[in-house]
């Protein structure tokens, strides 16, 4: 069983207290009426399905009942960090690619 850190409660809690709520960082168009059907459809229905690092929305449904974001590796299921809504993730796919490259001695 996984332990997930709830940034609101400030401690590790059992996985069963949480629910995943899909991809994070999807801003609602500020003026929906000005959207084309394609743009609105993109916003409503289309989600990323990466192999690797993914930023997701989770909710601590049995605890504080608040939403937060989690960065999860979709292959290993490792939860690399959790952070509050409105904050920026510190672990990103671009960041890890860079690190990997520098670890291998490749300079950008």
């Amino acid at each position, binding site marked *: 069983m996984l332990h997930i850190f709830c940034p609101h*409660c400030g401690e590790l*809690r*059992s996985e*069963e*207290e949480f629910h995943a709520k899909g991809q994070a960082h999807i801003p609602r168009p500020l003026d929906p009426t000005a959207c084309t059907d394609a743009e609105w459809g993109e916003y409503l229905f289309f989600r990323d399905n990466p192999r690797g690092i993914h930023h997701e929305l989770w909710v601590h449904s*049995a*605890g*504080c009942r*608040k939403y937060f974001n989690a960065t999860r590796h979709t292959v290993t299921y490792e939860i690399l960090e959790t952070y509050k809504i409105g904050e920026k993730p510190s672990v990103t796919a671009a960041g890890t690619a860079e690190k990997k490259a520098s670890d291998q001695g490749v300079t950008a």
Partner: protein
Amino acid sequence: MSNLINVYQQRPAAAHAESPLFHAGLEQLAGKGSARAGVTVREKKLLGHLTLRGDAKDPAFAGGVHKALGLELPVALTLVAAGDTSLQWLAPDEWLLIVPSGSEFAVEQKLREALEGQHISIVNVSGGQTLLELTGPKVREVLMKSTSYDVHPSNFPAGKAVGTHFAKSQLVIRHTAEDTWELLIRRSFSDYFWLWLQDASAEFGLAIKA
């Protein structure tokens, strides 16, 4: 908009009130349980439960609550109490205030007055939930059987309160004193939890206190 609108006495003095565990007949069961009970259950029934929401970072809100209740807003996963009144953290912007039966209307009005003009919410949820107090040396064993949350004193000292999974359902566990725990349960789950607690505490000996 004024915070003083649409507030009324929800517990008329003349009305007959039944707690969610009325049907269990706890009064009749009191004193009939095991003589050396490891677990003693008491329903703290018909208390005033108020859900308070507001901005914890706003000094005017924290100050208003302190002025009205004489209690500081508790930080995450804790509860503060003074006499029969307790204030518990539920979420970053939500607290549960439990006051003696019958005083919730007056307390709500006092709070609304102190928080006048602020963006807040106070909801009387007294009818929706109840408190079960568990005392005795074996309570922790019963909790360990029922929840995956770590109830060891090093992780769960007195004064802490967490919402978690319990017996395949959900509730709030409050550790109010050494060997004294409270379960905050939904009205509709009260019968289920009562049956569960009878079963879970059977091996330790169960007594009922009215």
